[in-house]
């Protein structure tokens, strides 16, 4: 049996309300909530980045179940906001946990690099190359000030340790779907990303999420009603409900894994953190489908069953996703600009 042995998340404490962002840019304060389903988004502190979020998420995973560094055979960190353009985040993670014999690499695939990391580690464990591997999705994503992404681009991350022993959630199947679709991109050296506006919807998010979800259910021989929970990539608070309805899932199946209304889009951290929120409340036997989306564009889907080991697993040893969603310090737009290093000064 190959699957999740332990998991942990981290969401920075700072939030900005979307109404505050709307006020800054002359939109109606209710616009982001009504139009995008977003109430607030998480903001990294001045001294936080994708690497510090990754470390905190991983330490939360290790509080729940400690896996010694020498047993870790692989570390993949998925992010579109790695602190360095050249110098891996994965080597920092290796140092923090003392995993000096691990295969370590950084991944980037817009919002799906975290699930890509999970698939890589899963494959290495399943192939018998390694006993345990770390997969992390983490981001401190940035939207151009005043752009629609200013309402959603947020910060957070989740770490999974995948192995074969004491698996709390078995990964039954995983599939991917990918095409060259330029819905969102950032050219080398550019500070903020660009996107195709409405083009990010139908030919990008919906096509890829629906394709991989359908491929997965066909492979697993399952139907939407066979699942207790479904987690979709959550670029806003509305797309997951819309794609869920089209695939035949109910809102009840979706809501436990949908946190973007409260913390925004954590990019590579999105689907992994939604899944983490579901694992926080799942019982043995529960079946979960998790479907990510990364612009550019692709989608990874996972069919997961929670095992009996969940009963003896120490979930309470680290903060749960909703604990971190609910502990919030609200800041204004000026403080947000300060924390995000968006104020231009002379060198």
């Amino acid at each position: 049996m190959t699957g999740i042995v332990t998991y942990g998340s981290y969401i920075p404490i700072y939030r900005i309300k979307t109404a505050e962002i709307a006020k800054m840019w002359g939109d109606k304060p209710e616009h982001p909530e009504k139009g995008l389903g977003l109430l607030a988004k998480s903001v990294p502190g001045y001294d936080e980045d994708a690497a510090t979020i990754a470390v905190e998420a991983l330490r939360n995973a290790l509080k729940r179940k400690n896996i010694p560094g020498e047993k870790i055979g692989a570390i993949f960190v998925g992010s579109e906001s790695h602190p360095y353009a050249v110098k891996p985040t994965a080597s920092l993670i290796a140092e923090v946990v003392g995993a000096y014999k691990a295969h370590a690499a950084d991944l980037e695939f817009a919002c799906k690099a975290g699930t890509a990391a999970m698939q890589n580690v899963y494959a290495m464990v399943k192939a018998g190359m390694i006993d345990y591997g770390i997969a992390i999705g983490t981001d401190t994503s940035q939207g151009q000030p005043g752009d629609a992404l200013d309402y959603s681009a947020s910060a957070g991350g989740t770490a999974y340790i995948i192995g074969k022993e004491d698996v709390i959630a078995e990964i039954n199947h995983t599939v991917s779907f990918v095409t060259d679709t330029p819905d969102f991109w950032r050219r080398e050296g550019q500070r903020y990303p660009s996107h195709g506006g409405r083009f990010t919807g139908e030919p990008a998010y919906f096509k890829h999420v629906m394709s991989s979800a359908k491929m997965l259910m066909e492979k697993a021989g399952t139907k939407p009603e066979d699942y207790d929970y479904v987690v979709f990539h959550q670029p806003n608070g509305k797309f997951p409900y819309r794609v869920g309805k089209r695939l035949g899932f109910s809102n009840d199946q979706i809501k436990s894994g949908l946190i973007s209304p409260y913390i925004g889009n954590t990019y590579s951290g999105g689907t992994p953190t939604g899944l983490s929120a579901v694992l926080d409340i799942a019982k043995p036997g529960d079946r979960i489908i998790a479907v990510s989306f990364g612009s550019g564009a692709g989608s990874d889907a996972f069919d997961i069953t929670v095992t009996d080991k969940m009963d003896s697993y120490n979930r309470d040893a680290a903060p749960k996703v909703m604990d971190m969603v609910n502990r919030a310090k609200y800041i204004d737009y000026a403080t947000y600009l300060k924390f995000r290093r968006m104020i231009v000064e002379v060198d």
Partner: protein
Amino acid sequence: MVVPRFWRERRYRYSLIGTRCPVCGTVYFPPRDVCPKCGRESVGKMEEVQLSGKGKVYSYTVVHQNVLGYKYQKPYVMAIIETPEGPKITGQIVDVDPEKVHIGMPVHAVFRRIAEDGKAGIIQYGYKFVPDEK
């Protein structure tokens, strides 16, 4: 801080690894190669020990000055944290309103950016402290 020095100290800074004297049991952070109490008896015998990251505020101050690299964080709190293992550690307390910090406040270590060497230099990571959740 120059790159080699930061590199040498990275394990202590990332994971709060100190040393313990096997003769008298005293724990040191930052780590020491020799126990000042036991002298030559401890030479070559000091053992590495990982601190729990828990602690209480022993004393603190709120910095309002424009210290280079900390302008965007002021006013910020610098504190001496008393650890259950023994060492008192100097560190910043973050994610807190400075007026809420008090002596005896329970805190725990978190992993943060400490400093960066300009826009092109290395980023130095290490420990800071945040208040315990209630």
